[in-house]
């Protein structure tokens, strides 16, 4: 593997890790709210969350690019408050990936929260656990399969995604060039040997990671009757 490939791998891992973290952070309260609200129009929001999925990634990336660019809504706003534009930066990649992978995180979490019901939380409250305490001691472990699915889908999808990333990131080595783009480039340049190598490596690495995650999960299985 070339130095460039290592750089791309590093960008990929940082991007996927950070995106997953942000997704879980943003997705959890949103999913919790969706799971428990009685708001009549929550289904509209649910539909909105899933919507980015139906656009081809490159096209979605294109629109995000327009929005993030100096003349776009978000970009213009950022510029007006003195921020730097997000397009072609690592931060921009993160924003794009978060946006695109949101449904993979929100939906499994929402289901897990719904299936859990309120009872365990009520019990925890009567046992003296504060809301934050309850979140970590009850919600997270009971909804663990949901969190796991959310994290795995969010992470894997970000690793593999490249349409949005390519569009927003501009494929700048060491900054926004991720492994998926590198592989794509190799394939495109007919460097199949190199592409096979990278793909194989990525697959092996991901497989090990997933094995570790699911293997650990096994240890904490909840027996249900």
């Amino acid at each position, binding site marked *: 593997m070339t130095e460039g490939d290592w750089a791309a791998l590093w960008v990929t891992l940082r991007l996927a890790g950070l995106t997953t973290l942000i997704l879980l952070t943003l997705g959890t309260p949103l999913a919790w709210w969706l799971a428990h609200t009685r708001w009549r129009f929550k289904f509209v929001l649910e539909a909105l969350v899933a919507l980015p999925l139906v656009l081809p990634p*490159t096209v979605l990336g*294109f629109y995000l*690019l*327009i929005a*993030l*660019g*100096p*003349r*776009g809504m978000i970009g213009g706003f950022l510029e007006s408050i003195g921020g730097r*534009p997000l*397009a*072609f930066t690592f931060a921009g990649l993160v924003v794009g990936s978060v946006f695109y992978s949101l449904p993979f995180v929100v939906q499994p979490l929402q289901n897990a929260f719904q299936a859990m019901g309120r009872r365990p939380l009520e019990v925890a409250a009567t046992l003296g656990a504060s809301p934050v305490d309850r979140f970590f001691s009850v919600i997270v472990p009971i909804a663990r399969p949901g969190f796991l699915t959310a994290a795995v889908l969010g992470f894997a999808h970000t690793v593999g995604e490249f349409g949005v990333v*390519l*569009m927003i990131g*501009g*494929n*700048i*080595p*060491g900054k926004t*060039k991720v492994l998926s783009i590198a592989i794509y*480039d190799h*394939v*495109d*340049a*007919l*460097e199949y*040997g190199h592409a096979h190598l990278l793909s194989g490596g990525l697959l092996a690495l991901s497989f090990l990671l997933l094995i570790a995650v699911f293997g650990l999960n096994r240890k904490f299985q909840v027996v249900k009757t």
Partner: protein
Amino acid sequence: KALADSFEAQSDHEIELSFGSTGKHYAQIVHGAPFDLFFAADTLRPSLLEERGIAEWESRLTYAKGRLVLWSPKEGYVDSTGDVLVDGDFRYLSIANPKLAPYGRAAKEVLEQLGLWEKFENRIVRGENIGQAHQFVMSGNAELGFVSYSQILHPDHALEGSYWIVPPELYGPINQQVVAVRDSPAVRDFYKFLRGSQARRIIESYGYELHHDTRNRCWPRSSR
């Protein structure tokens, strides 16, 4: 890429490359991508950039001309005159998307010239770019396809199969242009390099024709 390596070897500039489809990069440059040079597979988008004042005025330079070949990995399948097309004894013919890629446009023109476009409409598979067109053939799913001569001459692969170099009369020229998005000493150096003989040798070795472009000889103007 080979050009970049060689440029880096002979100058003290470093180049960072970003590959991707011409259309995508065009959109990115319009929205402020931090690129210095834009190598397009066509002439349309560099000229658009010039016109919109995004790229340096008159910095367009046609550095090469692509050559279209009809290729099949099977030995002896494609004859040297392209009659295999007329026989039509294949399931799929692969081309690049005529709308997106100059090679695709060229392939479409060839087929139209031969009066075969309509006939094959449902058997033509279209790659997003010339790379995919090549992959369709390479994987054996399409028996033959119009690819670029540079692809089958690729130094990493032994030339295999059979091919027909399509006569340039059958299609409009596939001019590959570069345009300077920003002006800088490095960009100027690169332009100088590109016009030099070493670059021309590399370009030719990759199966491109050289283009004798005069109009753009003036950039960068030394007077600036």
